[in-house]
């Protein structure tokens, strides 16, 4: 469902060029759970941004569900992001001015769903993460773990094919982190492809596949070799 070939990303300033990603080849099959680890500055965030269509790249090709994303304009990329990708961030990234219901509703409005369909999906997703009765609460009224569960509910309500999680337990205590991980694993078991960026090697071990980024290159830890495109 996801295929990257020779992807490179270079950040340029007047004085220096930084190769954030170099000739990355990467492929994800439907239903996989992949953990991406790596030290700070290794290119994890850049990799996540490019995978989530949040950032563009200089070289290579990237196909998402058979669609070459390098040919798409901002409107088409936004639509693709909205329809196929769900995001879970370390900082939760909920809109503080809106209550939980509205936070989950916003991306569904971008999708063009009817009010009735939106309501059904919001209620279902909130129930799924155990926050069914708190739709009218604001993010600031919740704990970190609860906020992360709302972010998961928001991602799930869109019924994405691909869930991108950026350090999803980074801001949570151990108990909350375990609950969130169990939730993500459950979501993956139900068929959603999961790509998780994390510092935590213990969490990474729970994934089907474990990829490490080092100096802008991807390495399959299990095989201890550079990830090659499976053609």
């Amino acid at each position, binding site marked *: 469902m996801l295929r990257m070939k020779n992807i490179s990303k270079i950040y340029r300033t007047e004085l220096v060029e930084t190769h954030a990603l170099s000739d990355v080849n990467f492929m994800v099959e439907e239903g996989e759970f992949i953990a991406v680890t790596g030290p700070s500055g290794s290119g994890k965030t850049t990799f996540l941004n490019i995978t989530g269509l949040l950032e563009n790249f200089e070289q290579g090709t990237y196909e998402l569900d058979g669609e070459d994303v390098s040919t798409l304009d901002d409107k088409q990329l936004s639509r693709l992001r909205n329809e196929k990708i769900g995001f879970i961030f370390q900082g939760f990234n909920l809109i503080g001015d*809106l209550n939980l219901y509205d936070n989950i509703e916003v991306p569904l409005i971008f999708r063009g769903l009817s009010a009735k369909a939106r309501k059904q999906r919001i209620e279902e997703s909130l129930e799924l993460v155990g926050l069914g009765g708190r739709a009218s609460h604001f993010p600031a009224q919740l704990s970190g773990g609860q906020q992360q569960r709302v972010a998961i509910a928001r991602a799930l309500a869109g019924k994405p094919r691909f869930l991108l999680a950026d350090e999803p337990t980074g801001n949570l205590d151990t108990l909350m982190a375990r609950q969130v991980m169990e939730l993500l694993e459950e979501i993956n078991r139900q068929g959603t492809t999961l790509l998780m960026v994390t510092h935590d090697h213990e969490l990474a071990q729970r994934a089907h596949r474990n990829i490490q980024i080092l100096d802008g290159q991807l390495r399959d830890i299990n095989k201890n070799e550079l990830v090659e495109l499976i053609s």
Partner: protein
Amino acid sequence: MSLKHILKIIIKHRNISVMILIQIAIAVTIVGNASFISYGTLKNWLIPSHLDEVEILNVYTKVFDNQVDKSALIQRDLTNLSALGEVTHVTYASNELVLATVTGSNLVYKTIDQEEAGFENAQFDVTSQGVATLSLAITQGRNFYPNEFVFAEASHNRYASVVLISETLAKSLFGEQSALGQTIYLQRARRPYQVVGVYADKMLGEGAVYEQQWYHSTIVPQAHFGNNNVNYLIRVKPGTHDGILKDVEDVLYQQHGRIVERVEFAARAKKRLWDGRSTFAFIMIGISVIAITVTGFGIIGLVSFSVSIRQRDIGILRALGASQHTVLKTLLLENALLAFVGIVLGSFTALWLNNYFVTHLRAQGLVEPWLAVLVALAVWLLSAAAVYIPVRKAAKIAPARVTKTS
């Protein structure tokens, strides 16, 4: 985002929202009134006077010597002024002069009923050559008979019994009915006069035009004397030069015990009147230009600030699937809502202020509905243009902004 979400965000950020709203309301208030006053002034200026502005003179004198026999003085003045070569007619004017700013009680009533509000009226109290001096064209009825003129000491309380009225005033008072033979009541004392004639409209008095009632005038064949003001209306031959002003002054100074305050053509009186009013209008236009500039920059500043503290939220929207176009549309809609409320508030304030200006400051320019709509539209466009600059920048916030906190 839906309207519901936008409204919630506006309420959450109410401090900035209220500031934007007030800016727009103030702009509408100032620009609205400036437009009404400027338009009113321009419109009034363009109304034809039908008056021979360069053939009629206003003469203001003051008698300071109480021993002077004013009746004799006036008779001598009329004789001496008539003797000037360029003068064709002259009348003593014991009430208004042409296009003079008169404040007071020159009202005309249809009935004696104290509850009736009456109409503003330019009332000309004249001697025998009054009608000729003003060159009035009588379209219905007749001119005054010689025996209908009253020339008397003011304290004697003798008044004429007949009156000539303008066509517009006749229509205001009696509609399609004939005014001839009808009784009207003048000034707050409501003294009765019978209408014996109606004359073609001329812009004679300014007391009336402050109330936006044009061509409302009456000619009364009565001339009272006794107070210190002794004024005249003079008609001169066409093409008479300004030298006549000095000649008139010299003639008047032949009589002792008085000073000549002003001798001027009606054209000069009119220009002075409109100069004063147009200055007010220009000041209002200047203030409105400043208001628009301040509002424009104010909105840019406030919206820039509003956007800057919401960068993260905008980044989240982008990550969740909002295109640049969607963000732009959402923020423009948000500010359009604020502008709408500001314009509504500003419009009400403008109406109130306009009423104050017209009532208390006697400014020209009642509310013109089409002009009010135009001002509202212009301010809305201005606010949209001002908002567009920071909002366009905000729409370009990269969706990757959301991962920066990681």
